[in-house]
């Protein structure tokens, strides 16, 4: 599904990623952990095609397709979804209108016509129930005045609506209380299927109690310094990141 080979990336001339190799197969959940400043968010931005970052070496492949040179929207059309750590506000644009625009843009890229109103409504009902989102929320301006938890739930709601093949969740647990965390995790678990994959980026092990990863990778200094199973997450929780730094 996702193959990253020797990926190097920099921002404003400063190297952040220094040779990342990663292989995510369909049906898998991977967790990427690491201390602050290790390059976790950069990795998600680079996969999504954020042009603030320059890829200096290596490549990213999705289903064997090289993503180099593709615009963020083209990557989205191929099925990449990024749940943002800090979702932006778009005043005056309702959650419903935004998701409708996004769905139809993706359908257009696939050569499909716009989704009919009743189908869209049905889908919105189904997914919003799943994430315990009430209809008032759907008519609010996108992320404007949302609490931290509402923003993250909205991200996962969009993921559920767009049904991507690869979902990257960037620090989705930050700012969530335990109830919201459970709802979000439940949304992700319902979404998980054998034809898609999930990459969870997190600082803490907490979220991984609810979204159980098949593999855990530790990022440090822009490199994956250790990989393992979910036990590795527990180890990090118990021992902190200091011992990892010595591995680098």
């Amino acid at each position, binding site marked *: 599904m996702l193959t990253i080979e020797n990926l190097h990336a920099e921002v404003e001339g400063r190297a952040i990623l220094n040779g990342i190799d990663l292989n995510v197969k369909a049906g898998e959940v991977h967790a990427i952990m690491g201390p602050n400043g290790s390059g976790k968010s950069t990795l998600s931005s680079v996969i*999504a*095609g*954020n*042009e*603030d970052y320059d890829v200096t070496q290596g490549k990213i492949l999705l289903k064997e397709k090289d993503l180099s040179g593709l*615009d*963020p*929207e083209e*990557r*989205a*059309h191929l099925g*990449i*979804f*990024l749940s*943002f750590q800090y*979702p*932006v*506000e*778009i*005043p*005056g*644009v309702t959650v419903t*209108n*935004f998701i409708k*625009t*996004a769905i139809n*843009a*993706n359908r257009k*890229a696939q050569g499909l016509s716009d989704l009919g109103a009743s189908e869209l409504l049905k889908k919105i009902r189904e997914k919003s129930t799943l994430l315990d989102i009430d209809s008032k929320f759907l008519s609010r*301006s*996108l992320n404007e005045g949302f609490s931290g938890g509402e923003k993250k739930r909205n991200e996962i709601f*969009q993921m559920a609506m*767009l049904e991507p093949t690869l979902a990257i969740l960037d620090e989705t647990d930050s700012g969530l209380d335990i109830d919201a965390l459970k709802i979000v995790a439940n949304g992700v678990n319902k979404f998980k299927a054998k034809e898609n994959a999930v990459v969870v980026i997190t600082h803490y092990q907490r979220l991984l109690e609810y979204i159980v990863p098949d593999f855990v990778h530790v990022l440090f200094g822009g490199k994956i310094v250790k990989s393992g199973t979910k036990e590795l997450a527990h180890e990090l929780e118990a021992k902190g990141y200091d011992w990892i730094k010595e591995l680098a």
Partner: protein
Amino acid sequence: MAYTEEELKKELETKEYEYGFYTDIESDTFPVGLNEDIIRKISGKKGEPEWMTEWRLDAFSSFKKMVEPDWSNVKYKKPDLQKISYYSAPKQKPKYNSLEEVDPELLKTFDKLGISIDEQKKLSGVAVDIVMDSVSVATTFRDTLAEKGIIFCSISEAIQKHPELVKKYIGTVIPPRDNYYSALNSAVFTDGSFCYIPKGVRCPMELSTYFRINQAGTGQFERTLVIADEQSYVSYLEGCTAPSRDENQLHAAVVELIALDDAEIKYSTVQNWFPGDKNGKGGVFNFVTKRGLCHDRAKISWTQVETGSAVTWKYPSCVLKGDNSIGEFYSIAVTNNFQQADTGTKMVHLGKNTRSTIISKGISAGKSQNSYRGLVKVGSRAKNARNFSQCDSLLMGNNCGAHTFPYIEAKNNSAQVEHEATTSKIGEDQIFYCNQRGIDTEKAIALIVNGFSKEVLNKLPMEFAVEAQKLLEISLEGSVG
């Protein structure tokens, strides 16, 4: 994706005025120049009564003593008024009974504009009085309106058939000597619309006029007069597009609204005149005077979406003379490339318990300059006057400007005047967020701009709102920096 400077430039260069075409219709055009003779000729051509001719000449003598104002925040080469032809009418005798009688060239023009009269008749129930150059060539639905006693016709026809109404109201809200361009308009206006809603009548449909400027080098001086008698209601739509021309075209319209006791007038405008090319060459000069007078408990709402013109100078205003009267102004002004807009409103509170609301949304892109200029004036007798003003500016790129000039004059200490203003910029993070969801940059900008403009778009009648949204998109294509 984010645009590079080069890509942006290229895209802007290839963006041409969507409605830039020119219809070849034989016209009856006066020689250029402005003098008493020309004014008498215009009046004569239209078979006007003596009082009207005198009124025009009176306006002209005021005009001659006036100078062009230069206080607005716009720069342009003053048009030479002696080089303009003041009368241009399609030669073929207008007034058709059916579409088949209409010049096929003209119908083609309407098609390009997306206004099929036929479609409009059937689908939207909008009575359209199309002002093609200076003479109304098609009026529909008149019979339906006539049943209710509503008069909706060209101003020329109104001067002929309803002289008592015209004589009573014309120039009462905007006296000819009000300003340089209103004086000019009063002297030389060739056509425009007239509307009268009788006492207690609710106009059953949106009244609509499409203004166009067609003939090369003919300035348009439209005159609109809307009178809503006591307890009546009317919603009036004004929309315009113009073919692209090389030389600047002057447009100096005057719109007067009179809302008698308990009446309500909703006046909506979507304006899309040729804004000039990528170098700022050409484009329409739009120097318009619009004002409404509210009697007791009357209400006037101005809603405007301004995307066109090279230079815009326009302040739809409300004189709240009657007690408990209400004035509203909702505006979206978009400027791109080298466009300049100095627009806003005046709310003049004279009566007691008068209320006004101003919502202004300015969107600037390219190298354009967008100014909001508003005056809230509370007279000494206007007890408990209230005003709320909100001016928001949205900037795209680093070469445009947004300016806000709010003026407040309160002579009654019971007045409450509030003013809020914000300035924001479309962020790259917002664009990236949309891109990541599969929405391309053009569409993302349209989405953000529509969100920004929503409070005003919501005030437009449904079919107009859709058109306005499209216009916003067209006007801002390729304008992210």
